[in-house]
């Protein structure tokens, strides 16, 4: 049980900065997810917390103790790797017991801890098997078991589910969440899968190119993304982005993107008045678009041409064209949509997100 703090942490290889000025407070008992595209520095951040990678600048504290100079094995953390990293020459029991044996735990204690972990993870019948005699899901459970027998202060996970097939991934996702609820230990979890991040995290850290983009609860990131990158990264299908220009006077500005017109009032109007070049990016989630006249449809209406329809089951994703720009709308399956036809869509004014056209920072 412990909190973890990163203060101004930096990591570079040569002249290339992998992680820049990272500040992060991970609370005791929290399930924190680091998410971002490939190469953004998630693994590096996790490995710096683990002590597998030293840091060039800043401080890392675990349980309020500075651990910059503390070796990985003395940080009292456990880590689960993407490729499981089970010892091929040891059976399941030995794999889980290894860390305890190295730490000179008494035999009975080791046995009871391993058996307890095997119980939690339903590995009881597999204790005598070698890793190569296990399925992917079973291997991942052994790797989890190896971490929990240690009863560490912090668990670190580096994309533990990405080698599993889709079905197993959903199952293991629930299993790890259940484990967290049961153990209540601080967990830091790296993934590039935003669905994993949304469903598992107490809080999510979105990273890009070595920088933290936003930190917040899953719903907070979804409803109030701090910038265009986060808005596009969280949520499927992806948020639509439209280039818009600002027209009308400063007292009653209107955002215009092709046939779509969004009059702004009050705080929103004030917020965009600072924009110099009269341009911004408008964002709206596909699920916030509705057919005119149906429940939820708002006062902002526009007509669009249908390009393509993807049927997912209960809903369909309709690719539409608005002037020269494309969007996607998630509509109920009963709405008749044919490529080539036009459709009238509507949205609430506050479903729209407005971003600075150049920096991508959210304005409102």
């Amino acid at each position, binding site marked *: 049980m412990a909190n973890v703090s990163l203060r101004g942490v930096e990591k570079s290889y040569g002249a290339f900065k992998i992680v820049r000025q990272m500040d992060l407070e991970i609370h005791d008992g929290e399930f924190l997810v680091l998410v971002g595209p490939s190469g953004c520095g998630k693994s590096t951040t996790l490995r710096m917390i*683990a002590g*597998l990678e030293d840091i060039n600048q800043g401080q890392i504290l675990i349980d309020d103790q500075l651990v910059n100079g503390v070796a*990985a*094995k003395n940080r009292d*953390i*456990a*880590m689960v*790797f993407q*490729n*499981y*990293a*089970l*010892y*091929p*020459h040891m059976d399941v029991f030995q794999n889980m017991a*290894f*860390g305890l044996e*190295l*730490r000179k735990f008494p035999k009975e204690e080791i046995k009871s801890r391993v058996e307890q972990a095997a119980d939690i993870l339903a590995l009881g019948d597999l204790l005598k098997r070698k*890793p*190569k005699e296990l399925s992917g899901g079973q291997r991942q459970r052994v790797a989890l078991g*190896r971490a929990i027998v*240690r009863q560490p202060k912090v668990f670190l996970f580096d994309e533990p589910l990405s080698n599993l097939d889709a079905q197993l991934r959903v199952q293991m996702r629930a299993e790890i969440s259940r484990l967290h609820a049961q153990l209540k230990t601080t967990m830091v979890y790296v993934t590039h899968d935003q669905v994993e991040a949304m469903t598992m995290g107490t809080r999510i850290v979105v990273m890009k190119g070595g920088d933290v983009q936003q930190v917040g609860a899953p719903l907070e990131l979804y409803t109030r993304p701090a910038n265009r990158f986060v808005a596009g990264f969280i949520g499927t299908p992806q948020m639509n982005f439209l280039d818009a220009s600002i027209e009308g006077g400063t007292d009653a500005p209107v955002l215009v993107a092709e046939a779509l017109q969004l009059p702004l009032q009050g705080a929103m109007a004030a917020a965009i008045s600072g924009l110099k070049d009269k341009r911004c990016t408008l964002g709206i989630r596909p699920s916030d678009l509705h057919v005119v006249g149906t429940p939820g449809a708002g006062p902002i209406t526009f007509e669009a041409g249908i390009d393509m329809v993807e049927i997912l089951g209960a809903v369909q994703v309709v690719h539409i064209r608005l002037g020269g720009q494309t969007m996607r709308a998630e509509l109920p399956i009963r709405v008749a949509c044919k490529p080539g036809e036009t459709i009238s869509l509507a949205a609430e004014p506050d479903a729209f997100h407005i971003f600075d056209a150049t920096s991508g920072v959210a304005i409102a």
Partner: protein
Amino acid sequence: MIIRLLSRTAFYLILAVGLFYILFPFYWMIVNSLKPSAELFATPLSYWPRQLTLDNYRAVLADGSFVRSIFNSFVVAGGATILSLALSSMAAYALARYRFAGKQATLYIILGMSTFPQIAVLGGLFTLARALGIYNTYWALILSYMIFTLPFCVWVLTSFIKEIPDTLDEAATIDGASAWQILWKVIIPLAGPGLVATGLLSFINAWNEFLFALTLTADNQARTVPVAVALFSGQSEHELPWGKITAASTVVTVPVVLLALMFQKRIVEGLTSGAVKG
């Protein structure tokens, strides 16, 4: 059709000639060791023994100094092998895992060491052995043999260890293992086939070595089998005791050949594959 038949025949003919050329010396050694000495020099040569006898073997095994030389060979070849494996597994681990200045250079210097002709280092070794006071002892031979066993072991084991995923090292680090414990409890068990292969080949090389053994020993105290056999003398200086020589050679070759055959699969495995898959 005819061309195919011809090329097939040619293929097997070449194969037969090749095999014959390779195997005949062994056959000849064994056959001669079983002939009574009278038949050895009889003309015409008998390619198939008319009479089998174990007299030569009795004579050889009754020869105390030959038996001693077998013991010497075991100590020297075994010592060189064990020392090489111990040192090279540590060196290979460092070369495979750590980044340090001059790593490539180190690797190529090690490789270069094993390319010198033996005769080139012989004089230096002799002087060194005298200076260190180890001339005519096991140490003179063990240390000299490591000139060729060590580079070989280091190279093969380095590539072997590189095949072992380094997340295993990281997992062990987090489990609380020191570098020593990682080497001893994770890497060495997984590099087992590589250790067996390199160890065996080192042993065979050291076991058969002649030139260093001849130069660095003076008598029975450390003299190994190849030299002992070469120095067998007959009744007069004009007579070579071929019967004894072939019997002695057979005695010392057969165990090595058996060993190689027994571990043949491990050797091939060890030299060709990393053999560790997630």
